[in-house]
């Protein structure tokens, strides 16, 4: 199941540990099964999943604010017919300002808000029956990431990293690109060891704040570069630090902590090179930048992030999340939803195409979705309110059926009525695609075994390719 390259990689990742433990049982130690007790050896070493994985890595495009499903991926002809009539829970029904058309060979209905993504319709697996328990943003965002809003729990990405380890020893295994302020819980590790938490890269989009940050122009990870020493000088310094550390280790004979310190400096030194290099897009061709919409225009910022995400997963990062915010149109839907979509349509389409042409889409799971959808009824004339009882997310690549639509909401789009996919089911399905059984991926904390899905979750097996 593991290629020679995988093995070599994992061996180098855990070399310090192996050197200590003796190299006799490399196979079992380097690719140890998920169920084996954590705590011994390198916690980030690649692990064998519970069953063969369809997806090896994840790119999660998190659409913060709640994009409207009835204006994007959930076609509701009845809503058009009943436009202006009284809605089920008050308010008058509002038809979508955008036209829906059937796309690709599969004929999936997608609105003109996402013309570029729509070209990849035959790769998309729409889940049109999403549900979560939280009607307001903070709670719903937290539940989407951790399964619950009531408690502080590990994030989906942290669980994935805990279950699978990572494949590049020069990079963090879980990266969150430009997460919104105050959302650290959404990519945190909670009670899982901190090493599984997401590493925040880049800053959230507040321009006013960015004005302050000129010290960090181009800086991506805190303290990634030294302001004073040349590379040669720093290497000399590092050699001194490591020789002091090794001498201590020699004196102490057995000291996993010191071993860990030694490893950490080597990784940090590699990260200093790898991270800025990986994040430096100056070597990308114009056509690549254009593919992602990262060359100019409104999609530039998100386009760069999508390109970064591709570079990260290609380099072996297990889980990358990108946030695209501000879908919360209680008013002014027509203008603002359009602007949000324009800023991400080309980048997402570019990402899908690039992954495909690099043959990465087959085992990279791309997930798109917000914390909830929006009501079919109007608010403030041309806006829509939150709707957590029925909305749409989609997945592509990594073992899901392309050109497929799963589940359905009622005639207007208020509530999921067929093949309901609660956020717990969604989580169970994502883990399943990664080769992880959501009921077996547990962590013992405060005396009991915790799961991402708590006591819930059913894999939506119909969507598996």
């Amino acid at each position, binding site marked *: 199941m593991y290629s020679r390259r995988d093995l070599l990689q994992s061996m180098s990742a855990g070399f310090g540990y192996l050197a200590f433990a003796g190299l006799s049982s490399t196979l079992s130690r380097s690719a140890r099964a998920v169920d084996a007790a954590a705590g011994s050896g390198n916690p980030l070493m690649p692990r064998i999943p519970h069953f063969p994985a369809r997806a090896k890595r994840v790119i999660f495009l998190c659409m913060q604010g709640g994009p409207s499903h009835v204006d994007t991926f959930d076609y509701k002809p009845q809503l058009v017919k009943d436009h202006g009539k009284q809605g089920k829970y*008050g308010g008058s029904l509002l038809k979508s300002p955008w036209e829906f058309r059937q796309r690709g060979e599969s004929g999936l209905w997608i609105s003109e808000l996402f013309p570029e993504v729509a070209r990849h319709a035959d790769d998309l697996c729409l889940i049109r029956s999403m549900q979560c328990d939280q009607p307001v943003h903070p709670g719903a965002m937290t539940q989407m990431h951790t399964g619950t809003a009531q408690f502080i729990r590990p994030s989906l990405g942290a669980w994935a990293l805990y279950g699978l380890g990572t494949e590049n020893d020069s990079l963090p295994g879980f990266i969150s690109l430009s997460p919104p302020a*105050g959302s*650290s819980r959404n990519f945190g590790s909670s009670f899982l060891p901190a090493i599984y938490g997401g590493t925040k890269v880049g800053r959230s989009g507040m321009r006013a704040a960015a004005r*302050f940050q000129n*010290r960090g122009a181009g800086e991506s990870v805190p303290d990634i570069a030294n302001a004073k020493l040349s590379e040669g000088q720093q290497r000399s310094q590092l050699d001194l630090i490591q020789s002091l550390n090794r*001498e201590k280790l020699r004196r102490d004979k057995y000291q996993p902590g010191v071993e860990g310190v030694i490893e950490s400096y080597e990784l*940090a030194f590699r990260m200093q090179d790898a991270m800025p290099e990986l994040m430096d897009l100056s070597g990308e061709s114009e056509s690549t930048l254009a593919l992602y919409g990262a060359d100019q225009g409104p999609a530039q910022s998100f386009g760069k992030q999508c390109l970064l995400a591709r570079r990260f997963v290609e380099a072996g990062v297990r889980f990358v999340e990108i946030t695209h915010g501000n879908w919360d149109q209680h008013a*002014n839907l027509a203008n603002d939803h359009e602007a949000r979509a324009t800023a991400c349509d080309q980048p997402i389409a570019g990402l899908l195409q690039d992954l495909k042409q690099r043959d990465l889409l087959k085992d990279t799971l791309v997930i798109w979705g917000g914390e909830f959808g929006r009501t079919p009824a109007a608010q403030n004339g041309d806006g829509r309110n939150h709707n957590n009882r029925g909305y749409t997310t989609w997945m592509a690549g990594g073992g899901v059926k392309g050109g497929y639509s799963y589940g359905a909401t009622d005639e207007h789009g208020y509530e999921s009525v067929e093949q309901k996919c609660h956020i717990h089911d969604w989580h169970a399905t994502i883990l399943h695609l990664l080769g992880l059984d959501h009921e077996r991926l547990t962590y013992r904390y405060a005396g009991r075994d915790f799961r991402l899905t708590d006591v819930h979750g059913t894999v939506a097996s119909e969507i598996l390719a």
Partner: protein
Amino acid sequence: MDWNGPVSKAIVSLACAVMIAPVVAAEPISADQQAFFEAKIRPVLIKECYGCHSNKAGNVRGGLRLDTKQLTLLGGSSGPAVVPGSPEDSLLYTAMLHEDFEMPPRRRLAGDVIADFQRWIEMGAPDPRETQMAEIRATISGADIQQAKETFWAYQHPQDHSAPKVSHESWSRTKTDRFILAKLEAEGLKPAGDADAHHILRRLCFDLVGLPPTPAQLIFFTEQFQQNPDQAISVVVDRLLESKYFGERWGRHWMDVARYAESTGREVNMTYPHAWRYRDYVIDAFNADKPFDRFVQEQIAGDLLPANSDQKWSENLIATTFLAMGPKNVNEQNRVQFSADLIDEQIDATTRVFLGMSVACARCHDHKFDAIPQADYYAMAGIFGSMTTYFGNPPSEFGSFSSAQARRSSSLLLVPVEDPNPYDKSYTGSELTELRSEITDLISQLANLRRNRQQSSGQNAARDRLRITNQIAQASAKLAVVDESGNPRTYCMGVQETQTPGDARLLVRGEIDQPAQRIDRGFPQVLCDHSPRFETDSSGRLELARWIGSNENSLTARVMVNRIWQHLIGQGLVRSTENFGVTGQSPSHPDLLDHLAVRFVESGWSVKTIVKEIATSRVYRVASEYDESSHHQDPDNAWLWRAHPRRLDAEAIRDAILSISGEVDHERPRGSEVAKAGYVRVRDGFLGDPRELAQRAMEQARAEMQGDMRQRFAGGQNGQRGSFGGRPGSSGGRPGARGRFNPRGQGRAGQAAGFDRSTAQARMAETMQRISNQYTNQLNMEDAKFRSVYLPMVRDQEPRSLVVFDLADTSAVTGTRESSNTANQALYMMNNRFVIDSSDSFARRLIREHSANGERIEAAFELTYGRKPTRGERSAAIGFIKKFQSQGGSGQQTLSALCQSLFASAEFRYID
């Protein structure tokens, strides 16, 4: 136990309104009534009300849900929606009349519809939407609880056992040692020999005061230790216990479990500008060796304890900040949910912090493992539900305003003894007038907006409303903290009893819309010898505090001595320090745990006594030396055949760097950065609105630059004047930093004589950078020189210097910190400005104090490692100096790089 509590208790408290809803007998409803309801009432509810007031629609404005009969009777934050038989007391009806509320908003229902509702309520509001009030039977019986009491170790009171017999009598220094040695002998393990004097001193200094030993202390101790080790240790322990640094060290340990923080955390992160008073209270308590039982009581019920002076009363009130400073989701839309979560957090913190037991597990169902039925949780919920928690900001004379995002707010407590913080703002008469007229103006703007709601377009009006609401809240917050003449008032966070205490209802699966039977207030049964009796009209909280802060329960003393043991030895006797339940670890040395607990109580609950008892024991001073055969037999070192090598915690690392570099400021700063900022929302790592702060920074920069220009033209060309010029200590730019903007380096241009364009630009850049640092650094405080315990603790924005080394999660009760070694730490040590600046200071100190390079190297090792370098280390250092200088490093740069390497090395951050 009687599951059905009295049903007649009066309803007063809003906070616990949900739990004490009146029980209405389920009277059968007639066919006519049913028809009336279906024809006239239900359709209107669905059409007009559910959009904003229904669980199903997911929208619960004002906490009001009209889904079912029970929820309708329960009402929302303003009271019951329907009082059967009494339309004028029914908010649902009066709101339709637009009396106090306007419902539906901006529209009056037709007269006949309103008349239908009047009629319906008059006929007793017959409602077929019946949900059965459940009666939950416990799966844990009285017999189960009794059995747990009799059999489980933690529920039996600690007994002082006589010290066991050991073969090597002379090894023991204290009774503690005999318990340890007896186990070692029984296991056939041999304890390691004593550690070297310098190791022992380093342990003592870091463990007791969180600071490294000075070279003078090292010389003194080493000499004394050679003559009489017991006495040497005893003397040093006494001195360290007397030092004010002790409280700063041990206070921080307490703040970990008390989840100390200065903001609410979560998405809408509002500051707690007065939380620091609790921090100082804790530090002072540990320094004064306040009896721990008293310390516990004050934190749970300081507001109810007798106090013989205003000073004491103030202290007691501040102590209750413990209950108020937990993490909160102030953005919670549903007031009832918020209240339930608040109580839950208080129960969880109280039981885990003091009793090492997780009662909050029983919120949703009987505890799966421990003998804690769900009813025990709601028995405590009644106690905590009978108090009001103060965590927000006081109302101003204009009323109580909160920003649109901070939906759930509250006031604060006035401290009886005035103790203003130097940051506290006072206002002159004219400033007050201005502020008042600003608020009056804003309020009328808002009223205008509301009046003209129909005309104005949706988006803009909504945006303006939001903006003005936030502005009012902000201005009102400013005004609220001063008295009528503009002088600051002294506030603290905390709790107060509501007027009439009430029992809570058990909630099925912990869900607020599933209330079941009422539960008598009480304590966890498995810990009680008999049911507690409360004074009439007492909520039971004072009784709870006195019971927890005593040896009447079997846990409080044990939990605390176990924590002390952990901080000194490296691992608790019970390793799960906050879980002494069935799912926790059982004690490795139960008799020792009991001995220490009994001794703790007998000493008058003196923390310092127990610290000394452990620090002067033999087991504290054994070496951490590795032994292969012992390791094979006992890989976790559970029997303590050697000392646990321990990584220093975050505060000790930062404080040691400051101390060694000679930069540390040992004065306690008054208040905190958060107090300075006041009651604001934390965004993007800024205390306040980043846009506003950016504006303020620009203004400041402009003003400074204008001032500088004037000065320059008036006062000649002295580039070192004013706020410019290279600060001592700021050093040059990175060679080859690829043109990266590096104003700190360019700041040196201030020494240039002329005032040409490029120097002007450089100055401007430096000013901008300095001012920008001032704002962006506000929460990291890389330039602060005081001890780490005083750094601002804003949830989710804790200082990087501490977070990177596993600071306790400020949102969780944390008795045992993680101790990781990550690449992030390595990057921090290699590249962070604080570390680099401190290394520069360290190098300057060495140059100041020693003239020869060899001496400087010796001193550098002594200061960082608490010992002289080995031969190998010395030659590695000399080799490094040669190499580094050949790479272009100046003498001081090279020494600084060496100092940084020592800070960065493993030995510096480990105690062996």
